[in-house]
């Protein structure tokens, strides 16, 4: 997981020269294709934001009207304000939880660290729509159990809690992103040379002075980069604001794009959707620019050599119990409780507080009533995606990394930049772009709308920045002389790839493959605007039930999904442990 922060473009000064042959040409070809798909998707959105019309119109009208009406509409600013509040609440919540936990894991003698690391890594992968659904069942003003219980107990006239406001949504998202923040902060903490602190101590600084004047100052750029990264994810988040806020018309940008695209009556205004997407891209680009700036600052202080130091471990002493309580409480409230609610709701015909009557009415009816045929189709679609998407993504990633790191092709910096783009572009924009591309451009010569292909392309491209970051850092660790010696020994580029590079990359590739497969499994945002009843994945099935307010079916399907995920999760855990990816030191 150390690779999460290592996504700067890395261009070594010396590269071996290479000879154009079949293997190297196909690697370059793959790179060009993969990066052009990204360019085309962004290009289509940009182009259509200046047009008026629907797919099938013979001539598209060019106009600036979408931009003017959007900028003159007060509601746009409301959404912008909401999105900002949501992002900041997300960031504040996740850091408030993750910072202390990361510090406990990295710098104290907290007991049972491997368990916490494993739980955190697993929690990274739990679908956030499942957790969000759990929170609906807990705190929804009408059906939420806590509200129901308190109203009955205290004889209130109104529900005391409301989950459907921007702060509550931010807190839920923040709790969901705590594992991510945790992993990033842990890496930053781990990369600090303890000698810096020790030098402060020897120079006469008291421990708290050393923390203030050295530790925090050294860690600040790294933490800032992590913070901007989390804010970026909050900005692009769809699951939580969609499930908690959409029914109440409380929008962030992601859900607003979705809402404009799926009007309750009439045809959607594709031009407006494209324009909103362009604005999202611009804002996301601004954020990722900040992120890169912060990252550039980070190596100045915190050592990002990948070298792991052994810092001084503080003894918790009598604070031990409090520390354990804090961590356990986080897991119970943020992860276990919502998932238990999901299970509880899936067993009941309608949501009710635990009582003799409720237990009486427990049954598996919600599961048995799920539409079998649709379930089977969604399941097999998801299975295909989980195999095909990581394979395509990683093949393209290896090609891109090889071109960027091992050749002197002039455009390599451009390829590196394009492969970074999917990190910056919100997922909802990607799926909007794919939809527009399929409807406006490809409908005549390659009708991919409604097929699994459109999902495969979008999923694979959206994961490309993650994939290339993994393959970049893996390739950098392979000494170029290992390849050069194979060349000198008579191997062609293809031979070097087959006999040396791929075997050496294999552990990293396997890890990344399973990780991307799991992300594919839990993905909801990408399919949400391009899925039809034909090519829907499992997550979209759950989403469909939520949209229809069929909460019983939704919770049953979500729970089923979680259960089916367990064997893959176990496999991931085994691979990750072997690769040393889940480990306190």
């Amino acid at each position: 997981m150390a690779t999460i922060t290592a996504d700067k473009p890395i261009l070594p000064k010396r590269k071996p020269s290479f000879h154009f042959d079949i293997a190297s040409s196909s690697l370059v070809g793959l790179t060009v294709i993969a990066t052009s798909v990204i360019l085309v998707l962004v290009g289509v959105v940009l182009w259509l934001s200046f047009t008026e019309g629907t797919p099938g119109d013979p001539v598209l009208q060019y106009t600036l009207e979408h931009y003017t009406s959007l900028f003159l509409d007060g509601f746009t600013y409301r959404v912008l304000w909401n999105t900002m509040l949501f992002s900041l609440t997300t960031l504040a919540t996740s850091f408030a939880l993750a910072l202390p936990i990361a510090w406990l894991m990295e710098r104290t003698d907290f007991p049972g660290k491997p368990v916490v690391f494993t739980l955190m890594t697993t929690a990274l992968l739990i679908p956030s729509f499942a957790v969000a659904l759990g929170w609906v069942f807990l705190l929804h003003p009408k059906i939420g159990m806590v509200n129901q219980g308190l109203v009955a107990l205290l004889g209130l006239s109104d529900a005391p809690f409301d989950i459907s406001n921007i702060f509550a949504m931010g807190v839920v998202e923040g709790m969901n992103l705590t594992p991510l923040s945790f992993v990033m902060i842990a890496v930053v903490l781990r990369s600090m040379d303890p000698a810096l602190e020790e030098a402060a101590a020897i120079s006469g600084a008291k421990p708290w002075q050393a923390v203030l004047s050295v530790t925090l100052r050294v860690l600040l750029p790294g933490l800032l980069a992590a913070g901007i990264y989390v804010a970026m994810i909050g900005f692009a988040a769809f699951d939580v604001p969609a499930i908690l806020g959409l029914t109440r018309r409380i929008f962030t940008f992601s859900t607003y794009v979705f809402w404009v695209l799926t009007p309750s009556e009439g045809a959607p205004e594709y031009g407006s959707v494209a324009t909103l997407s362009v604005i999202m891209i611009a804002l996301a680009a601004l954020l990722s620019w900040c992120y890169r700036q912060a990252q550039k600052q980070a190596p100045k202080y915190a050592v990002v050599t990948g070298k792991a130091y052994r810092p001084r471990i503080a003894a918790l002493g009598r604070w031990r119990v409090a520390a354990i309580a804090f961590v356990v409480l986080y897991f119970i409230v943020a992860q276990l409780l919502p998932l238990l609610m999901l299970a509880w709701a899936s067993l009941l015909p309608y949501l009710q507080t635990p009582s003799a009557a409720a237990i009486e009415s427990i049954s598996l009816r919600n599961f048995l009533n799920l539409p079998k045929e649709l379930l089977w189709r969604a399941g097999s679609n998801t299975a295909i995606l989980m195999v095909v998407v990581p394979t395509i993504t990683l093949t393209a990633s290896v090609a891109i990394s090889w071109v960027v790191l091992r050749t002197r092709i002039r455009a390599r910096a451009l390829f590196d930049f394009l492969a970074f783009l999917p990190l910056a572009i919100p997922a909802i924009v990607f799926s909007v772009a794919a939809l527009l591309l399929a409807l406006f451009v490809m409908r005549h010569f390659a009708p991919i709308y409604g097929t699994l292909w459109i999902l495969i392309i979008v999923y694979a491209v959206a994961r490309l920045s993650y994939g290339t970051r993994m393959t970049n850092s893996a390739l950098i660790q392979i000494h170029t002389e290992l390849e050069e010696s194979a060349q000198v020994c008579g191997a062609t580029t293809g031979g070097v790839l087959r006999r040396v590079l791929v075997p050496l990359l294999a552990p990293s590739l396997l890890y990344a493959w399973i990780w991307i497969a799991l992300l594919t499994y839990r993905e909801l945002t990408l399919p949400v605007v391009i899925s039809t009843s034909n090519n829907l994945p499992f997550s979209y099935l759950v989403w469909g039930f939520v949209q229809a307010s069929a909460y019983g079916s939704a919770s049953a399907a979500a729970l089923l999904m979680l259960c089916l995920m367990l064997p893959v999760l176990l496999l991931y855990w085994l691979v990750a442990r072997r690769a040393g990816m889940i480990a306190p030191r």
Partner: protein
Amino acid sequence: MIGIRNLTMTYRTAHGEHLAVKGVSLEIKQGQFYTLLGPSGCGKTTILRCVAGLEHPDGGEIEIGGRTVYSGANRTWVPPHDRHIGMVFQSYAIWPHMTVFENVAFPLRHKKPKPNRAEIRDRVAKALALVHLAGLEDRPAPYLSGGQQQRLALARALVSEPRVLLLDEPLSNLDAKLREEMRLEIRQVVERLGVTTLFVTHEQIEALTMSDVMAVMNDGHIIQEGSPADIYAKPKGAFVADFIGRSNFLSGKITAMTGSNGSATATVDTPIGPIHARVESEAQIGDTVTVAIRPENVTLLPHGSDPGIPHNHFAGTIDTIVYVGNLLDCVVSVGKERVRLQLQPSAEVDRGAQVRLAFPVEHCLALRA
């Protein structure tokens, strides 16, 4: 066996262009052990990598065994896998996912025509025996010590019986003792097989002890080429004199000359007084030169004793004495200059003592500045 003519090579980096090799020509004869010696960044490794085909030069010509593998003029380019060379890398580049056997068998498996299994086994065993690694075939490569990895890299480079062996600072990752052992061993193996060898190093001791011919490089040029003994005794220019061994340098103008060019003796007016020195290159009265003398050639005499020669002796004070085991490293102030010299560890000298230094004329070399 290896011919390089007018080779140039530029690196293009984010910080601009860097001309690494500036028109180098050299000729390595069949069976010769040829060393490129120079400080880091002088272009020596670049030349080696150009011979291997791992770099694309900008211009010039490279020939291996009569076959042109690169020519800037004719746009000839043979990729590395077709050059039939053996190479030992600085990091050894032992493939960690293979066993010792697989590592050595690799070049044979990519040879055309491919030898059969029995022959591969046979030749791998022979190559391993050559470097004293027999019996380690099945061991995973990462489970070898540094010295063993070095031997393995050598076996892999030699197994397909290449006509040319390239060595890229192969000893720099070994500890001092092992390095000395491997110097001898590499030299013996290479000699036994009669393979033409191009060796790159920044350690003068390796160049001096191993080479038939060595070339001293600086800043992309070959400064001097010759046998180790020649280069040590008759360095051309201050750079070589300082880089090979150590030298004291005193500069001044030539005031008088005796003898003819080639074996002339000049009187050089240095800050500590006139010094008589040999002149190898063409020089005239009035030229500014640098007189070089190696620390081991400076003689120390007690104060007031008779040096026995009419010139080249100077009074001084002992400044520092450093004990380095097999000798004493000494610095003597003569006027404003400081002269370094080496003494036997048994020599009885004290700091601050008044002494006399003698510079034997045959060891004083006047180099053009």
